[in-house]
């Protein structure tokens, strides 16, 4: 058998599964959004914008804010891991930062729901330390809770990628900059960051898509309106069986991510050349 045909045969089963169970439903979510009583129309979108425009804005703001915080934290942690002068502090940080890496979102939702509540452990500890009085405690179970959950879970992932890229950089340029008296912050921002920017971007985009897909965290932490689009879609289907509007919301979230994903796919495909 010629080699190209054999290769195709070996890839085919995996490809068929992804095509049938991801690409086809993806396409039907798009066609479903434009289908009104079996005909083409925009009524689903009209209704989606009427009922859920605050959720759309809420989702984009929350996810962008989380991505920004994740970027800042992972640059700070990765930068210290690469440039830190004390080996013991670096070792402690390396051991510490990755704990949330594989904690499932559903577990993140549960632990933060109990931790951030008005009577949760965080407020209790602040009260014990005398920083807060019982009257001053507030619940963080709103948009702040979602942002905290996303940052808590996704920062280790982006940091892992970023620290790996930083570690594989050529040290000689960093050392010579140090010898010339450049501060570590300046080395991080002017020498290291520009070289690892593609990795940071890929990590952030993957996190962006992940955050746009998570249903459990908004359901568990933010049981109020406005909420994330994922929760609105689930509600639309469970309460009304309304696939049209749910699919319209789906297309809106697809468009948001495809704008971001386009950057990612272009980057990855370029590396495969």
């Amino acid at each position, binding site marked *: 058998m010629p080699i190209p045909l054999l*290769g*195709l045969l070996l890839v085919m089963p995996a490809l068929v599964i992804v095509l049938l169970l991801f690409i086809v439903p993806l396409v*039907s979510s798009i066609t479903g959004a434009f289908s009104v009583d079996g005909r083409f129309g925009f009524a689903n979108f009209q209704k989606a914008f009427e009922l859920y425009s605050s959720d759309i804005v809420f989702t984009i703001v929350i996810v962008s804010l989380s991505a920004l915080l994740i970027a800042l934290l992972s640059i700070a942690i990765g930068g210290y891991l690469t440039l830190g002068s004390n080996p013991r502090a670096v070792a402690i940080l390396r051991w510490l930062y990755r704990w949330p890496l*594989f904690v499932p979102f*559903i577990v993140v939702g*549960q632990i933060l729901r109990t931790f951030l509540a008005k009577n949760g*452990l965080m407020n209790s500890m602040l009260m014990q330390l005398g920083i807060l009085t019982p009257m001053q405690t507030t619940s963080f179970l709103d948009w702040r809770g979602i942002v905290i959950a996303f940052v808590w879970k996704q920062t280790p992932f982006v940091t892992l990628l970023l620290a790996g890229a930083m570690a594989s950089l050529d040290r000689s340029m960093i050392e010579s900059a140090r010898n010339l008296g450049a501060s570590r912050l300046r080395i991080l921002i002017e020498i290291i960051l520009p070289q690892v920017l593609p990795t940071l971007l890929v990590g952030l985009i993957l996190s962006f898509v992940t955050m746009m897909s998570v249903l459990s965290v908004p359901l568990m932490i933010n049981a109020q309106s406005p909420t994330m689009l994922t929760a609105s879609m689930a509600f639309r289907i469970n309460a009304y069986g309304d696939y049209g509007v749910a699919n319209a919301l789906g297309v809106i*979230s697809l468009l948001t991510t*495809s704008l971001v994903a386009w950057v990612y796919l272009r980057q990855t495909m370029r590396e495969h050349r």
Partner: protein
Amino acid sequence: MNATMIDLKWIPRALGLGLLAFAIFGPLTNLVLWAVAEKWYFPHALPLQYGFSYWVSVFSPRGNATTSLTMSVIIACLTVVFSIGLAIPAGYALARLKLPFRGAILLVLLIPQAFPNLPVYVNIARLFYQIGLNGTVVGVVLVHVTHGLVYAVWIATAAFSAIDRELEEAARSMGASALRTFRDVTLPIAAPGLLASAVFVFLESLDEFTGTYFVGAPDISTLPLLLYTAGSGGNYQIASITALILLLPSIGFMLVIERFLRADVLSKVGR
């Protein structure tokens, strides 16, 4: 002079590391406390009474957790077998063979990473409902396979491309068939990477919520679904115990991942 300088520098370091440790371990401690709390209400900082009576009821033979745990493990094992079975040939072909439409194939395998999967699950659920796969183990396994397969193919491709070609060529030149070379040379060297991808797919399936929520519920109950129902019912002890069961294998994997995935394989993931 020098010694005091070093001592002083530990103040900001300890402060930063301490804050990070609080942010990471505070919530985790809270989970463990809830799992062993018998009585705990506001404004008490710590549980009033500790005990394992909830553990007994969760793990009783007729308890929900036992059923959900069994179901979760069955689904995760089937998912691993399917995903790895499909990923080994695909990964080998992508790493080693000349493929026509290589770019298009990679694109199809990257797309599930690049789009939110909830709209997809909604429509799979609708499709499965028509063909009677909703609420079945097969239906849930298929959804998990689609999700896990993409990671499995990536890691398998990376594991195969990290192998030195000369080893395979040496075996071939000594007269071994292509199949035998693959079985006796390539596969054993790639095994640690493939094992890591199997563990990863297992965990992804064990932790998967959204797809199971749409395709499986209410007939199929996995641990994440049990956690969700217990939590929304206000039963934080049951929810926390379930969360702890899900947490242990994940943290175990986090601690050993570097032994499985060597740096040279890790650096090739997604390339």
